[in-house]
């Protein structure tokens, strides 16, 4: 069987959960066995019945110690489930937390890890995946040499599963070890944004140093993003200047995104920035320097001043 860990935020399923289910379904057709989805957390009944619309078997593991996503308790629950159900593959979202606990699960199961994958296939009973490397400049094809395997799946790549099941929900105890509780979570700061999350946004408007100031973001970037229901991104130069929070940074040391449309305003296109966005379907650049490297990776570009072009673009998209 294929074990899927469905991510949720306070009991509402994340899009990544449905993407994992579609990845798991096509993997199970080639590898054999059914798909089982696990939910970890507290008060999961709502999320569990929602999840059961997409998959035949849901296992809900409720425990106060699972209220926060912590690598060690997650690892214990997932390795226990994988062993008990004799999973051939464990699928996890390649979110910040998923990348972290999936490595521990692989180590504890002594299993190969396929990390941050963008496609999955099976040949001769062995799982083969594509993933990016070298700051997303390279696409590599990797084969796992044994089963079971642990796979973390890059968000926003696989299609979301369709709600075509009416599955059952089983509850299971977490069965944690005392040491699973040794990392204590203190204060939490949510990345404040009333907008669509960057990693889930279908359109992203990113401002670079060319936007000029924090006010430039309020005056130029935010209105355009609002008109497009888009997420807002920033370059490191902008984050370092304190104009925007780090949570909006796109690039090597920020987020990796691949939206349908990526609009770069006053962004030069440094490699460290490109590595976080060069997989976007369509890239748009507005920059006053016709030689800026960003134009090399752009589908559409305007050579011009953001102060003039961006308000005009906002008007133009609003009247579409």
């Amino acid at each position, binding site marked *: 069987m294929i074990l899927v860990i469905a991510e949720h935020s306070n009991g509402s399923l994340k899009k990544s959960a449905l993407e994992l289910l579609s990845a798991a379904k096509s993997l199970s057709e080639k590898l054999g066995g059914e798909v089982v989805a696990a939910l970890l957390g507290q008060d999961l009944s709502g999320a569990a019945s929602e999840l059961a619309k997409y998959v035949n078997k849901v296992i809900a593991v409720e425990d106060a110690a699972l209220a926060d996503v912590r690598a060690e308790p997650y690892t214990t629950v997932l390795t226990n489930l994988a062993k008990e159900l004799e999973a051939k593959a464990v699928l996890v979202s390649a979110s910040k937390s998923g990348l972290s606990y999936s490595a*521990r699960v*692989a180590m504890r199961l002594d299993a190969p890890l396929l990390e*941050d994958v963008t496609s999955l296939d099976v040949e001769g009973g062995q799982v083969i995946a594509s993933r990016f490397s070298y700051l*997303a400049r390279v696409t590599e094809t990797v084969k796992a040499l044994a089963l079971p395997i642990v796979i973390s799946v890059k968000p926003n790549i696989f299609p979301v599963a369709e709600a075509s099941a009416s599955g059952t929900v089983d509850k299971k105890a977490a069965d944690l070890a005392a040491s699973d509780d040794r990392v204590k979570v203190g204060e939490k*700061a949510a990345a404040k944004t009333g907008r669509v999350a960057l990693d889930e946004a279908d359109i992203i408007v990113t401002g670079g140093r060319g936007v000029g100031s924090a006010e430039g973001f309020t005056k130029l970037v935010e209105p355009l993003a609002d008109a497009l229901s888009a997420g807002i991104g920033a370059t490191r130069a902008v984050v370092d200047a304190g104009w925007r929070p780090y949570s909006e940074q796109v690039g090597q040391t920020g987020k990796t995104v691949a939206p349908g449309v990526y609009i770069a305003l006053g962004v030069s296109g440094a490699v460290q920035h490109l590595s976080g966005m060069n997989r976007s379907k369509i890239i748009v650049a507005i920059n006053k320097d016709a030689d800026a490297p960003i134009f090399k990776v752009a589908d559409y570009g305007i050579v011009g001043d953001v102060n003039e072009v961006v308000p005009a673009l906002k008007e133009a998209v609003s009247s579409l």
Partner: protein
Amino acid sequence: MKIISVIKQVPDAEARIRATPTGIDLDGVTFVIDGMDEYGVEQSLRLREGGLDTELISLALGPKRFEEAIRTSLAMGSDRAIHIETDEALDPITQAKVLASIIQEEGAELVFVGGKEADWDSAALGPAIAEALGWPHSDWTTRLEINDTSLSVTHDSDEGSETLTLPLPAVITTQQGLNEPRYPTLPNIMKAKRKELKKLTLADVGSPSGKTQVLKQEIQTKSRLNKVVQGDAADAAKELARLLHEEAKAI
């Protein structure tokens, strides 16, 4: 107390990488210490400068060329280094087992690992080392304080950031924001040449075999339209909106 920083050497971000039928060709590419690893070395130096009585060790697993990156960490201020030299590209899980065995042998209590490697784009090494050692870890760490037997950290979470406390021994994976790494000074670069660099081979650590195999590597070359829309700001903006709507069907 011993602190170990795991070091990798990676292509410079600006380096032009070429693909060949057999994989990535790194000939002629400039290599540097992974920027994410520098955060770890810097943090260990700051802990010592803050009064912690500690020995700082750099630990690397990779080909001979890694020596340069190891020397950079020694020039920053690490005391000595261990290099397990191999040309084999072992997967992060297998690497973690090897590194964990050395960490255990050394009796280190705190280990820094880069949050995401700039060659394999992998974030697995740190958590996997922690698991192999049976230690807790903090990933994507942006702030760290040490209090006797525990650590207080801030790290990036899925929803934003959170503070954690965790007991030592522990593994910390780094993230931008943790600190600003120092540049090695010339005298320190000279001094680093005389610091101990112990060499091991994979045979010394049980000749592990990898769990994955890279079949193919290609440079991403999705061709872009490269259409520059002409006209004054208002006309160009209107035309761009039309293209995105009608041609690209994207908005």
